[in-house]
């Protein structure tokens, strides 16, 4: 069956864009309630439980409240940018969704419809390009509010996002080395098993790239401004940051943007490291469309539905882990955050790329063909690297608490001895 073309392609793309956008917004609503219920569970209280069954309709009540509340415009605000910033906060996270494949291609009478809005040839680079635009919302929101607290918050937030963006991008380089292609559906296909066509690894990239997945996840946490990296907000002690002056729906848009970002990162983790829409231990769902249009596998509508389900389950699990981490770990201090980003993550990821590249070179020299054993060797290497990494992190030399800081950098010597490092 040939891929869909012509007018049907336009209709299918519009339908997919509308559908996936709706699903994204519904997931954002759902994830806010999941976060609050989970917080309640961890802190041994009920959480929202007044509106609807189990408080599930609390989101809608909050939405209505935010819409009918008064919109304030601070006297010192620079109007066009003040209005632009919330839009820029939502936009990157939502348009990133365009390149994420959600399921196996769907056969229709007009042709094969891939479950991705736009299969751009530069998929991976598109993700980086759009991701780098996300800083504008934070920076502009802080600056345009005309308040020094907002400005400082905006600077704090954008400095953090820029710092971890580097590590985020670099942590995906080994993945590209392994996948050999930047198209996102192709990255998913490489994690499946096929009897025909170019060789694949037939295992999720989580295993051959364990340490890379860890780095990606940590920088993803920092990129989305979630605990333990939620310095941009820090509502209790740092006056919230870049959205201090925003009220009602504009504030709500920043929050929607943040949750959409969380879901996007969860979807990316799923696609890159958890096999995307692949159903484990079953090869029947492995369907691949090569870049020249060749189809391998046997698409049916129920496989599309099943794989959509598999993707949702995996992505939801990642979101739940995000929430779990938020209510488990304490926040980093700002200098620890910067030290971790620039003095540890960046170097560690660079070394990791080098090691993986050398190992791949070695494997190819030995002559192991692409496939399970290839991935297994990389998995063993990653286990070794991971142990070294965790050992080094556990020594507490990389990120120091105030008490352990040397005399040269005790600019603010309130030695409370809060040793955040160690068991984290």
């Amino acid at each position, binding site marked *: 069956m040939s891929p869909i073309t012509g007018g049907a392609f336009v209709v299918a793309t519009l339908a997919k864009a509308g559908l996936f956008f709706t699903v994204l917004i519904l997931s954002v609503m759902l994830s806010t309630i999941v976060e609050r219920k989970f917080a309640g569970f961890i802190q041994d209280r009920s959480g929202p439980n007044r509106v609807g069954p189990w408080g599930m309709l609390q989101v809608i009540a909050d939405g209505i409240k935010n819409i009918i509340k008064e919109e304030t415009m601070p006297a010192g605000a*620079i109007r*066009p*940018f003040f209005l*632009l910033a919330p839009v820029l906060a939502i936009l990157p996270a939502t348009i990133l969704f365009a390149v994420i494949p959600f399921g196996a291609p769907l056969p229709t009478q007009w042709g094969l419809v891939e479950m991705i809005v736009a299969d*751009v*040839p*530069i998929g991976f*680079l*598109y993700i*980086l*390009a*759009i*991701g*780098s*635009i996300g*800083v*504008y919302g934070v*920076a*502009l929101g802080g*600056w345009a509010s005309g308040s020094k607290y907002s*400005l400082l918050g905006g*600077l704090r937030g*954008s400095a953090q996002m*820029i710092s971890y*963006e580097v590590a985020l991008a670099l942590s995906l380089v080994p993945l590209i080395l392994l996948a*050999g*292609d*930047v198209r996102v559906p192709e990255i998913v296909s490489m994690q499946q098993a096929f009897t025909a066509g170019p060789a694949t690894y037939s295992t999720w990239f989580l295993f051959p790239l364990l340490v890379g997945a860890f780095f990606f996840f940590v920088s993803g946490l920092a990129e989305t401004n979630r605990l333990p990296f939620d310095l941009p907000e820090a509502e209790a002690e740092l006056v919230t940051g870049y959205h201090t002056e925003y009220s009602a729906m504009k504030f709500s848009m920043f929050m929607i943007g943040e949750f959409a970002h969380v879901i996007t990162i969860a979807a990316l983790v799923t696609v890159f490291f958890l096999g995307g829409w692949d159903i484990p231990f079953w090869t029947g769902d492995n369907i691949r469309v090569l*870049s*020249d249009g060749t189809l391998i596998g046997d698409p049916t509508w129920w496989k599309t539905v099943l794989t959509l389900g598999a993707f949702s389950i995996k992505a939801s699990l990642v979101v739940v882990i995000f929430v779990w981490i938020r209510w488990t770990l304490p926040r980093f201090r700002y200098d620890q955050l910067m030290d971790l980003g620039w003095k540890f993550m960046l170097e560690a990821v660079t070394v990791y790329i080098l090691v993986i590249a050398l190992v791949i070179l070695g494997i190819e020299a030995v002559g192991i063909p692409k496939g399970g054993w290839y991935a297994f060797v990389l998995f063993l290497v990653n286990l070794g690297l991971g142990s070294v990494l965790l050992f080094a992190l556990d020594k507490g030399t990389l990120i120091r608490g105030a008490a352990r800081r040397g005399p040269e950098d005790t600019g603010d010597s309130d030695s409370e001895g809060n040793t955040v490092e160690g068991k984290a």
Partner: protein
Amino acid sequence: MMYDFLFQFFAATAILAGVIMVTRKNPVSAVIFLVVVFFATSGMFLMLDAHYIAAINLILYGGAIMVLFLFVIMLLNLGHTDSEDLRGPFGGLIGGAVAIGFLGLLARLLVGDAPAAASVVPAGEALRAATAEQGIIGVVARPLFGEYFMVLQVTGVLLLAAIVGTILLAQRKHA
């Protein structure tokens, strides 16, 4: 038809945003409109099948360099009212003369016997074949890390020297 329309859309956006960018008094507005220019030019790169350049244009210029500009402008411009760039009648005269000169050069390109204006056409078959064989990245990466490897390394050393120099200059004040 669609191709022409898209080209005209991106070209008009780029020119319009460029004009707005140089006429803004508020430097932050100028940065935002420059970002719009980068988006429009990236769109034109995409139409030329130069996907890699389009993405890098957004990652480096739209994402990294412009954010840096924004930072610097936001911090330097705190509490200052925006002042005129062209001071006095003399400055205005020089500015106008330079502008007319550049417009003349442009006009000469359009009507004179200057080299034929490059027309925007889709990528040639050669590029298409190379992309199909080596992939989007390979087309750029192979010459970069093969034929032009030395140039790449020298550029890297040059940038490193610039970074070290900047740090040195910044530190001298504290000593």
